């Protein structure tokens, strides 16, 4: 969305046409160029701040005290929350029956925002604004950014939303980077006529995929369905299925290594890897992404994790294109030839020698991709599709403004957060693009 097709084409061409570099300090060069761009550097600093908020969200906004002394015992409830949610620890009876702010602490330090995103303040229900009169004990308990209809603190929701937005960006992009780098490097390194395998390996691999899918997903369809219905076990069942598929592929390839010595079976066949991957990319680019994400997300059980995974699986294409372009250039460099001459395996050359030198352009796509993933997630939760109703995100907060016009704070704060986050990632992306190739600077 943010990387117009033309711009992508330009970057791709620039990568391919960059002359072979002799100096080893390519990274240092890119870094130096990047740090010349003041706007990009400031965006990076803001990103660190946002990352800090996302990581320490529980310590910044929580209905539990950071440290408290109750009945002569010093406790760290925010830390303890982690052990409780992992199932190791357990809350004392007094905390289950009584709200956190109703205890008589001898000594207590509250987080900056003494509310969680889900804690409900019954006294300040139905949209109390930051400047409205709030029924709170003291200024310390004021809802700085107002409350929503249920009386949930908006500032707490914003902090929690930061964590969600950043994790959507990072997880979705990790998935798409994995897919994109894998497919793109295969296409770029092997091109159309360098990927060869023995005939038997090709045949066995095709059979292996069919059988693997059969044993992993079709024969286990019932177990998977049961897992999904019960909720908890689904991930385990799914992992087991992927394990079966993976094991099948390994088995088949071992078999092929043994069988290829037989006459006739070992004949090499050529696989047009580049062609296949490029066609796949074209198919993915023709599918209207937002509509597809909407329809998939509407099917799955509302959960933010599903949203992350789906966005990741759909947005790998530009990473694959950039990596491919970079590897088309790298594969002709002398050091790769040297590695081949030394008899290293293809996998080792690709993963140890080629890909590490091709990662810079991927950073550009990742920066733009995080922006677009965050925007997509915000949009989905704005529509209320795919995100559980009790989950508070920037998009869901913004959506509340639509149902209640007087609540201006719900329209302004979450939107600003989305805007700032998206903008800094775009600026970082632009900065990286300029740093990679100063000629692209307009």
């Amino acid at each position, binding site marked *: *969305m943010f990387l*117009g*097709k*033309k711009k992508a084409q330009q970057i791709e061409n620039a990568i391919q046409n960059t002359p072979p570099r002799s100096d080893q300090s390519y990274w240092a060069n890119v870094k130096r160029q990047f740090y010349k761009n003041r706007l990009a550097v400031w965006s990076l600093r803001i990103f660190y701040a946002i990352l800090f908020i996302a990581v320490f969200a529980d310590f910044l906004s929580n209905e539990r005290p950071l440290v408290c002394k109750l009945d002569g015992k010093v406790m760290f409830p925010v830390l303890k929350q982690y052990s409780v949610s992992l199932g190791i620890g357990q809350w004392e009876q007094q905390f289950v029956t009584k709200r956190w702010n109703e205890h008589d602490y001898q000594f207590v330090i509250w987080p900056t925002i003494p509310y969680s995103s889900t804690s409900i303040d019954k006294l300040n229900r139905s949209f109390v604004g930051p400047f409205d009169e709030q029924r709170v004990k003291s200024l310390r308990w004021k809802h700085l950014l107002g409350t929503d209809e249920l009386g949930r603190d908006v500032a707490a929701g914003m902090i929690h939303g930061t964590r969600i937005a950043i994790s959507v960006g990072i997880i979705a992009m990790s998935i798409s980077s994995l897919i994109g780098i894998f497919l793109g490097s295969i296409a770029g390194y092997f091109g159309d006529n360098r990927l060869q395998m023995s005939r038997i390996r090709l045949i066995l691999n095709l059979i292996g995929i*069919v*059988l693997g*899918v*059969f*044993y992993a997903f*079709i*024969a286990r*369809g*019932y177990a998977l*369905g049961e897992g999904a219905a019960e909720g908890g076990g689904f991930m385990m069942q799914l992992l087991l299925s992927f394990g079966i598929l993976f094991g099948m592929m390994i088995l088949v390839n071992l078999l092929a290594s043994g069988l290829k010595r037989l006459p006739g079976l070992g004949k090499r066949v050529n696989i047009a890897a580049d062609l296949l991957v490029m*066609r796949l990319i*074209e*198919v993915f*680019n*023709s*599918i*209207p*992404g*937002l*509509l*597809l994400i*909407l*329809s*998939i997300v*509407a*099917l799955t059980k509302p959960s933010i994790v599903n949203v992350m995974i789906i966005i990741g699986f759909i947005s790998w294409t530009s990473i694959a294109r950039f990596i491919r372009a970079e590897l088309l250039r790298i594969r002709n460099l002398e050091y790769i030839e040297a590695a081949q001459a030394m008899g290293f395996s293809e996998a080792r050359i690709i993963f140890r020698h080629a890909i590490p030198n091709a990662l810079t352009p991927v950073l550009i796509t990742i920066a733009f991709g995080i922006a677009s993933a965050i*925007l997509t997630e*915000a*949009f989905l939760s*704005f*529509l209320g*599709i795919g995100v559980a109703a009790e989950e508070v995100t920037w998009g869901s907060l*913004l959506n509340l*403004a*639509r149902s209640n*016009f*007087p609540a*201006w704070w719900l*329209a*302004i704060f979450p*939107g600003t957060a*989305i*805007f700032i986050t*998206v*903008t800094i990632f*775009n600026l970082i992306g632009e900065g990286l693009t300029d740093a990679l190739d100063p000629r692209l600077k*307009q």
Partner: protein
Amino acid sequence: MFKYIVQRLIIFLPTLLAVSLVAFSLSKLAPGDPVELLVKGQSGESGQKASVQAYEEVSRRLGLDLPVFYGALTTSAFPDTLHLVIKKSERESLSNLISQYGNWPQISDYYLSLKSLEREVAYFPVDTAISLMRNTISRHVKDLLINNKDSRIAFALSEIKTIVSDSSSLNTLQPLATQVADNYAKVKSEATVFKNYIPSLNWYGFKNQYHHWITNFFKGDFGFSYLDSRPVGGKMWDALRWTLIINFISIILAYLIAIPIGVSTAVKKDGLYDRVVTTVLFILYSLPSFWIGTLLIVFFTTSEYSPWLNWFPTGGVTDLPSSTPFFTRAIDIMHHLALPIFCVTYGSFAFISRQMRGGMLTVIRQDYIRTAKAKGLEEKSIVWKHAFRNSLFPIITLFAYIFPAAIAGAVTIEVIYSIPGMGKLAVDSIVARDWPVVFTILMFAAILTMIGNLVADLLYALADPRVSYGNKK
């Protein structure tokens, strides 16, 4: 060039097939039974016999009694006739039973005896004295039909057994009830679980749901909406009108404003004007349109904040009936559409301006511009006659990218301003699981995107002969 076009057209078909397969399999994975939805909408509460008939009729009309796809990779325990069980919930429970026990012949016996018990119970002469017990039995039978968990089945079977043996008037059901229980015991005792681990490939031929749908699609018959039984084509056409109006106006506006701004900033590069405008454009480009849309609708459509901020209507496309004179109605519609059009426009406007500025900058650096300057031509004529024309064409080709993107991008704005366009139709149908509509919109959006990409690439190649689309070696 010709080769390139042919190449692109060849890709067209597999892509469309891939999109159609994705849409189709999504609809098959969707929980819920569309037939149930339609039947409920049609008949309301009528007799059991009528509802069973209605169910069969509707699923036949929708073609849901056919096998799903041309073929299937299943386990050898599955029969190739399972699609003949029309009711979706029963089919699912049967397939779960097969996965558990792997012996279709026994399961089929069990299912058939269960069905005849159901029929028997339904036609049992109604007598006020036993109607309560009859209803209990029928509830348990229904439970048996849709459950595959051993504990649930055992419970229902024992309940039926006690009721039947206790009541003398229901005694006639005794043999059937015992038969069901016996058949179920057989299913359990003669399980052949190993069959679930033998793959088998079934071939159903061309009479299947997917084939049916895709051939109809290419014939222009998009089926009927599950929600209101209207033809999908008609629904889409109504919606498309509004989306087209908004997008055409906004794209024209965007070009009209963006081109002069792009050119003027490029000419005055690095001046104060350029820097201010470029920054503003970047901010506009990064502003999420659903946020701006929400802000505008919150602040400018009601007198909530101040009576003189109530400039625009809150949503919809018009308040007037269709009988009002065309001109008044058109003005009212424009009044309604002003905010949405603004929201759709500013993003593409910023994008086009940035592209225009970039294009101009590359052209201005060229030698022939320096020659023109050296000749002593006027600044104005250099800019507009020599530079502008050469930088314009790539901008026009942008249109082909922007148009499909705009149609998908209008989703947000249409939802916020409740405009009955394609975007809103898509979201509403997705939420309501109205698959025929979702299919068609997905397919059309994909076709539009592909055509847009193709046209853009071709125009680009036409405009700039240096671009080659042959095989670069």
